[in-house]
């Protein structure tokens, strides 16, 4: 059961601005920096993953019990994967409490920026875990494709319980509400396909243009 707790040496201010809906607009950079620094201080990154075989004909992850992947987009995404990694990452509850505190104190804008920095932090933590896994999978001749989470495209969020089970996310303290929300809120579960290097596959990096949520605050313009 590999556990890897990412090291966050800097929270990306550019991504933080994007998640705060600021894009490339000029804003008080000192405040953005402050939010990034505070997110770095309060984040408690933890990650865990497990590798499974994947049957592209039956669309089943060969876990015990098996996990049937439903959804056209996710099936297409995993069409050439021989194995999958099921991954869970969180940055913990402390930062969540602090975001709420700031709002209560009337620091609306800063609360939003810290929330955006926290989102950046959990994404960075997941990137870092991915990079660590890549070391193993590259050595075995696999290429990793981008991570796909329940709720993306037509992959229903109701598969969170299976994702938590397969990644063993409870080991790092992630739980689920009845309505399929991850607690702590700044947590991620995802599946990553492992494509044998011999099958050339150059899928484009996930892009905002593929997403149907046109009015998303963090949507990239291009």
């Amino acid at each position, binding site marked *: 059961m590999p556990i890897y707790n990412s090291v966050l040496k800097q929270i990306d201010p550019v991504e933080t601005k994007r998640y705060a809906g600021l894009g490339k607009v000029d804003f008080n950079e000192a405040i953005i920096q402050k939010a990034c620094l505070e997110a770095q201080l309060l984040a408690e990154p933890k990650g865990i993953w497990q590798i499974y075989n994947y049957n592209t004909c039956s669309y089943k992850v060969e876990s015990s019990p098996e996990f049937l992947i439903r959804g056209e987009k996710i099936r297409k995404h995993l069409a050439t994967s021989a194995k999958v990694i099921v991954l869970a990452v969180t940055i913990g509850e402390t930062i969540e409490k602090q975001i709420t505190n700031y709002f209560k104190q009337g620091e609306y804008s800063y609360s939003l920026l810290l929330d955006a920095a926290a989102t950046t932090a959990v994404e960075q933590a997941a990137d870092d875990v991915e990079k660590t896994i890549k070391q193993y999978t590259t050595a075995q001749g696999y290429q990793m494709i981008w991570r796909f989470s329940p709720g993306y495209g037509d992959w229903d969020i109701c598969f969170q319980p299976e994702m938590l089970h397969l990644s063993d996310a409870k080991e790092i303290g992630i739980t689920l509400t009845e309505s399929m929300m991850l607690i702590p809120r700044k947590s991620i579960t995802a599946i990553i396909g492992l494509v*044998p290097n011999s099958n050339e596959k150059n899928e484009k990096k996930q892009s905002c243009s593929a997403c149907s949520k046109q009015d998303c605050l963090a949507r990239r313009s291009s």
Partner: protein
Amino acid sequence: MIYVFDGAMGTMLQSANLKPGDCPELLNIIQPDLIKKIHLDYISSGADIIETNTFGGNRIKLEHYGLADRTREINIAAAKIAKDAAGKKIKVAGSMGPTGKFIEPLGELSFDEAYSVFFEQARYLAEAEVDYILIETSIDIQEMRAALLAAKTATNLPVICQMSYSNDGRTVTGTDPQTAAITLEAMGADIIGANCSLGPEQLLPIIRILAQNTTKPISVQPNAGMPHLVNGKTIFPMDSTEMAQWAPQLIEAGASFIGGCCGTTPQHIAAIKKAITGLKASTRKQSLPRLALTSRSKTVFIDKDLPTVLIGERINPTGRKKLAAEIKSGSFLSAKKEALEQIQAGAHILDINMGVGGMDQTAAMKKAITEIAQLVDVPLAIDTSDATALEAGLKAYPGRALINSVSAEPERLETFLPLAKKYGAAILCLPISANGVPKTADERLQVMETILNEAFEFGLKAGDFLLDGLVMTVAAEPNACQETLSTLRLYRAKFGYPSTMGLSNISYGLPNRPLINSTFFAMCLAAGLDAPIMNPYDKPMQDTLFASAALIGHDQNGRAYSLIASNQAVPKGAATAPEIDVDILTAIKAAVMNGEKEAVASLVERALAEKYPPTEITEKALTAAMNDIGIGFGNGKLFLPQVLLSAEAMRAAFLKIKEILPAQNLQNNGTVVIATVKGDIHDLGKNIVAALLENNGFQLIDLGKDVDAETIVRKALEYDADIVGLCALMTTTMTQIDTVIHALKKSGSNAKVMVGGAVLTQEYANQAGADCYAKDGVVAVNLAKNLLK
């Protein structure tokens, strides 16, 4: 002399049909002939050193196959097979690969557990008389440190330490080859190298960096290129001819041990042997050893020809009650905050002191070092007089730390020096003896000599020392300043090692201490102070450091100095604030739009003093501002964080009006009960809508998140709500909106229903029977006003 290692064991076993899921190390017992044949093939290809088939032979790895209780049997069998095959001329290296787990805090395995697992394996390999211990393919410097320490303690054999680097030239956990070389040499590694993950081309620059940073021999064992999967088998594409072409370059770069990792075969080794025959190991230019400290991912050098290194002193609970209490309660949040902020202020190294009375300093030091090292990338100094706390800190630290400090007191020398040697730490030498603090420079020099001689006895060497100049109080000791300056000069002339000290003692008891401190600082820098221990937030000291760097020549021609804005000549009179020449309501409106909440509060105060009625301030300044902001947000000119800053300014204005005129009834546009629906724990979006409504004259009843239909209906009736605002962020909680609306209508409430949240749409709102759908907080304010017209 160049030594050739063998190639891959796993690749050979795979081609001998080892099935995935079988334990390769068990073959030492069930198919010893197969393993021996592979060894013999490599020997006949020209290998000078063969590696035992024990890469996964540690207890944790073997446990995966239920073989943990056969750890000894497997390792001894493997070593015997190799020794058998090797005969007298060929050497055997006992291979120790990773456990597959990360060490705390990156993972769940404790340093001590890792240490004992490697200790056990090294002991068995040594028992069967291997010639080297080879720790290989490590991607976590903490795991390498644990294994190296274990191998050095369990055996007397030379230890080879090979880390695995990724394409970006670092291990996946962030360690670069310079940092690895310095950290591992200090801990006693005998040969330092790199293997696996990369092919020879990518390893070449890494070998060059290793060669520049260690005096130890260097080993390299590349993969045969980057792997592909063919028919379920991992194939490495580089053939023996191509691989061998890289060998002379790797030798020239500094390697004197060369072999192969994944995908290499006896053919590869034969080709490498042929390619290097007749070559000599390259001679490396030996520069004088410098003092280097490392973190997991960074090296910092301290030396006389290098820019001044600032050691941040703030993580020290002495005289800081709040910090002390927090540390005592087990929280390191403030200490971590100090760590980040000191680095922002320019610290290159952080001193960590956990000297809080009445608590377990050892546990605190371990936790502080672990957590701060995980957060920042600058090296740390462990500041303690307690040997147990020191060892806990050194063990937990994934790099080469500085020990602060070693004095000439016998007990300190006896306990601290062995720890410095064992964990590869540098020492800060403090010239205080059992007789107390020497007053003169000559006496200090003598005491320093005692410390250094003792340190040499314990195996420390040049490059391990940072000398403290000692500072006394000038108000009590008239020569205090002169003696310290002389000490620094004498250190430089006699030993040549870099120097350090804390400075602020000098000014104790004098007025305007900052002036004395910064003047003294400039003198010390000129006399050869290399690494001051100081408060990095201290502006006069930082200014002095910048100016001194320009004068001493660390900052050539004062270029960096010139870039600092505060040193630019400012034309006098240009900075005076313009008088407000607009009327005060316009000024309030502008301040709200700019989100200047402090300015707003004082402007509102002035407006009230000038007898503007609050309703006029609200309508003509505040509401007018929010209207303009709404328009700006709507057409994409303003963004949410800016809108929220304006809302904060509005709030400040309302609070000010309430404070000055408590009885004043401000405009009430209507009562809104707002909630995030049951099952949904998202708060922020709803909070933003609530804040914007509240600061636009609505009375807000915020029920929070995860609120069930019954509560929402009850509160709507209780407060006679004009509007009920419902928020849902997920498809799974969206249907709660239908439930609430249904219950509200049944209850007889006349409230209008406004809905919003990430997944909601106008269509959904219509179908659920809502009165309106607000796509964001600004729209919500406009809709709320329209609903109640």
